[in-house]
């Protein structure tokens, strides 16, 4: 599903340039539940941005769903994001003046679906994350956990190939974190590839595969034994 080969990325910092990713090789298959672990500055956010088509890599190759990603203009990137990727952010990133249902329905608007259909599908996904009764509430009226559920429903609503979650529990307390992770696991059980970025060991341990990153290189890539237990 995601295939990275010798991936490099550096950012210009004045005259110098900051080499963030120094040749990553990573292969994530369909249906995997992977976490990227690393302290801040390890390059994990940069990796997510590149995988999420929010940023471009300098060197190496990136295949998403078998398609080589290179020289994307903004329009193509936008269409691919809408088609293949669902995002979940640490700070939820819901649109503040839209209610839960409208937030979930928004990606479908950019996909070009009709209003009624959008609402119907969005309601299904809100139901899936257990927030049917909260459909008409604004983000400001929801708790942190509820907001993240709305964000997850929004990520899923276009039926993407991969869900990318950037510190999805970073702003939540531990019990809420746990329930959000349970939700992600459930999604993964339905066959979705889930890609989580975190710096918390216990969150990473709830996934099936942990990739550790330090200073722009992968230092370990191991399966948790949880899956073998199941």
């Amino acid at each position, binding site marked *: 599903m995601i295939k990275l080969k010798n991936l490099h990325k550096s950012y210009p910092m004045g005259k110098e340039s900051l080499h963030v990713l120094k040749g990553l090789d990573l292969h994530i298959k369909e249906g995997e539940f992977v976490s990227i672990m690393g302290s801040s500055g390890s390059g994990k956010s940069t990796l997510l*941005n590149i995988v*999420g088509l*929010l*940023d471009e890599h300098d060197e190496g190759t990136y295949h998403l769903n078998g398609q080589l990603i290179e020289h994307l203009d*903004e*329009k193509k990137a*936008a*269409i691919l*994001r*809408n*088609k293949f990727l669902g*995002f979940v*952010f640490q*700070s939820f*990133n*819901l*649109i*503040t*003046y*839209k209610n839960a249902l*409208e937030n979930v329905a*928004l*990606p479908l*608007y*950019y*996909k070009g679906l*009709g*209003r009624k259909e959008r609402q119907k599908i969005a309601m299904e996904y809100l139901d899936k994350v257990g927030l049917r009764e909260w459909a008409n509430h604004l983000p400001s009226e929801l708790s942190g956990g509820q907001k993240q559920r709305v964000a997850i429903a*929004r990520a899923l609503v*276009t039926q993407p190939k991969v869900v990318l979650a950037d510190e999805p529990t970073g702003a939540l307390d531990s019990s809420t974190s746990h329930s959000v992770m349970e939700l992600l696991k459930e999604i993964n059980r339905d066959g979705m590839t889930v890609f989580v970025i975190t710096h918390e060991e216990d969150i990473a341990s709830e996934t099936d595969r942990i990739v550790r990153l330090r200073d722009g290189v992968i230092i370990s890539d191991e399966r948790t034994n949880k899956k073998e237990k199941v």
Partner: protein
Amino acid sequence: MFNLDRWIEIFQTLNKNKLRTILSGFTIAFAILLFTLLFGIGNGLKHFFEREFAGDANNSVYINSGITTKPYKGLQSGRRIQFKNDDTKFINENFEDEIQFFSPNVQRFNVQAVYKGEQNNYTVRGVYPDYQPLESAVIEDGRFLSVLDLKRKSKVVAIGKMVEKDLFGNLSALGKNINLDGISYKVIGVFSDPGGDRDERFIYTPFTTAQGMYRDNDQLDYFGLTYNPKLNVDQALSFSNLLTKMLKEKHNIDPRDQGALRVRNYAEGAKNVQSFMMVLNIIILLIGIGTLIAGVIGISNIMVYIVKERTKELGIRKAIGATPKSIISMIMLESIFVTAVSGYLGLVTGVFVLKAIDKSLEKYFIINPSVETYVVVGATIVLILAGTIAGYIPAKRAARIKPIEALNDE
């Protein structure tokens, strides 16, 4: 553009951000309001000048005689020039094409007019029927003098409204006989005159009647004529110059003599008024355009701020699949919609205010301040263009926002 979903999205955004919408709308509405008021008041000034010069037909020429100030061809200065009937013929024959209406005039001041014990003094003028359009007189009752009256030397008069009011009070003067210096005349018509009260205190009688009554021979006082309206201002001026030259030759007047023959061509005044109006129009236009530009810059600023404020939202939209094009069209349609609607509101308010203050401005030389349809349509088009320009730059910038930067922008 006519995608219903897109409009619903835009209305929702505008509706959920009322204060922002109202503030940006207010800027443009205010600019258009000022623009409309300026234009309306400018037009009011124009109307005032038009009315002030409406007293006589504005293509009229009056020819008066005087006393020579220079000796010429052996003739001494101080000679009185007297027009006679052959001058009437002379002008008529030489300038048939250039002249529209023409009338010689015999004038008598301080004629005592009496009707049943009411009496007053007026100026009596003996004229041709053509004199009516010359004076822009409007017949209110009866008729003006006719060619037949002229031929028959009838003792008939057309009197001004003020004369009727003075002598007849509220009664109609039509068909009654009034006494002018002891001789009875029949009133055949009552007229009003846009020139005002002064012009409505004249009494007109056929030229032949007056000449017979007030002159011993074929002398007359002055000529009034209107030139062919097809002539432009410059052609009209050269016509009256030629006329002056020929009349001076005929009466043996030095061509440089300014006193012996005075030709007053209203075209000259009209020319001055025209250039004055042009300058006024340019000033109004400049101020109007300036106001509009200020408004456009205002809304452009606000749009820049709005885009900045919405950076994060736009980043989210892009992350979930909004293309740059859809971001640009969203911002621009919002901008165009706000400018068009608020601009229209400003326009309507302006027109309404102009209507409301209409009467109270008359003492400041402003009459019927209003804006023409083409100005309204033009301003609306300018507005929509302004909205497009004002929206485009920030929209373009918004489309370039990198989603990551936007999302990191807390």
